[in-house]
């Protein structure tokens, strides 16, 4: 794994177009370009939204789902299975499915809107709106994953704790806050870090739903790197962005991890 990274750094200092046998070293020109590139900043902003937005929603929903489905009730197994199901669909296909949901003409969502008497909307035409729609699709697809991590975590909390607390008169919300959530922290940490990294690296869904458009308003750093390398024939610049993204994700996730792990350590 190390060698490819070094290669990546080396590449970011060239102006290679991705396939020619020759290229020139251009020093830090690619990085300079990056600092001034509007497309880069949009992708950066989007990546943060994809990462943190998805993670926040997934964590909250994941915990709620897990709590809901923890104890037996009619349909529990079915629910667990179906909620996780979307995660099994390949990103490419999921992207096309979501395209069919949001497309203007004959899109599933617009059909419902028309049914309710409204006017169909071209959902993805607005870059800002499209970004959040992508976040929601991402959450829909992967909240199941968070859920099963949480369920695994909940399994680790002995029932005796909760029983003792309720005998002592603690209400459900109180028990939640003081017993369940803290003991769930390792699970939360794991899933937050994984979700965050997954969200920051978001790629397949974006590509299939909007290809980064309209214009470039829904690009994430991942799709931007792909675009630069393959479509724009600018492998050097692509590698530069790639380096940045790697460091960027590293910094963010390390930071979050430290924060959460400190909390876990405080508990034990």
């Amino acid at each position: 794994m190390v060698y490819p990274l070094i290669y990546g750094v080396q590449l970011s200092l060239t102006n290679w177009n991705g396939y020619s046998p020759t290229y020139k070293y251009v020093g830090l020109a690619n990085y300079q370009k990056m600092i001034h590139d509007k497309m880069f900043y949009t992708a950066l902003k989007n990546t943060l939204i994809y990462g943190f937005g998805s993670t926040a929603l997934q964590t909250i929903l994941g915990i709620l789902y897990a709590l809901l489905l923890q104890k037996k009730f009619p349909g529990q197994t079915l629910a667990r299975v179906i909620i996780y199901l979307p995660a099994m669909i390949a990103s490419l296909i999921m992207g096309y499915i979501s395209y069919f949901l949001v497309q203007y003409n004959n899109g599933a969502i617009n059909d419902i809107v028309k049914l309710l008497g409204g006017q169909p909307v071209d959902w993805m035409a607005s870059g800002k709106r499209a970004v959040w729609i992508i976040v929601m699709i991402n959450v829909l697809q992967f909240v199941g994953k968070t859920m099963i991590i949480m369920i695994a975590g909940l399994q680790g909390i002995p029932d005796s704790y909760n029983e003792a607390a309720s005998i002592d008169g603690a209400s459900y919300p109180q028990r939640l806050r003081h017993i369940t959530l803290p003991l769930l922290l390792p699970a939360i940490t794991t899933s937050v870090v994984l979700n965050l990294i997954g969200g920051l690296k978001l790629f397949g869904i974006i590509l299939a739903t909007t290809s980064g458009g309209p214009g470039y308003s829904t690009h994430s750093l991942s799709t931007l790197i792909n675009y630069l390398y393959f479509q724009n024939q600018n492998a050097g610049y692509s590698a530069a962005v790639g380096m940045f993204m790697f460091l960027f994700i590293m910094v963010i996730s390390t930071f979050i991890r430290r924060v959460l792990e400190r909390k876990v350590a405080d508990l034990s």
Partner: protein
Amino acid sequence: MKKYKVVSWLKAITAFMLITVHIAPFYILINMSLKSPGERTSRWMPPAKLHIQNYISAIEMGNLLLAIRNTLIIVAASVVIIVMVGAMAAYPLARKVTKKNQLILGFIVGIMMVPQLSILVPLYKEMVSLGGINTYWGVIIVSATFNLPMAIYMYTNFIGTIPRELDEAAMIDGCSHMQVFFRIIMPSLKAITASVVIWTSVGIWNDYQFQLYFLQKPSFRTITLAITTFFTETKTDMGAAAAAAFMVVLPPVILYIMLQKYFVKGAMDSAVK
């Protein structure tokens, strides 16, 4: 006492609503797989006529059965490696909390953050010189290595929740480290192992980038590649692609249902006693 309280029924209703939302993508997928290409009815409406031809095309043109076999081999081998190596590597990392181990863990997590694309070309170059292109082991090693960090990370965190006293109790009884690992730790990790298995197998099952570059021969074609054969430069056979996608999503689902019960079983009953 009633078997199911009112709260349970409320839960059931909420669950039902959630199910509806989450199953929508599948419903649309199945719908599309049964419609003929020209049909332009609403995505929600079932097809007027069941166009089974899509499934036939999917199997024939995409050579789906072969693809499934290939993918199964790759996924199975990778997952075994990931679980074994991952858990074993996580054990010392979780138990012995030293600066060095923290660094190693950080580095491993760091690998997770490398976007696949950035290392694709150099990785491809190396595989070419190692002779790993168009082989099973090439893809397996790459897939396993790429997913290993996540497994290690998850295992490390969860092993941390198993009280050390268990280890110490067993060691006092005369167990070696390896025995502690296999007799005490692994059984307690059933739930999280199930998660890891599910997550990595789905990931590799659906993986696109690595398989695209490393398996170019049709005899090695995996399912994701088989599906892309329906998206050509000039025409897209959405019906067949949907049919293929649906057939292909079934094995992971079955796997999930089978592993599901591990989430339910208690984690620590045996150990404490």
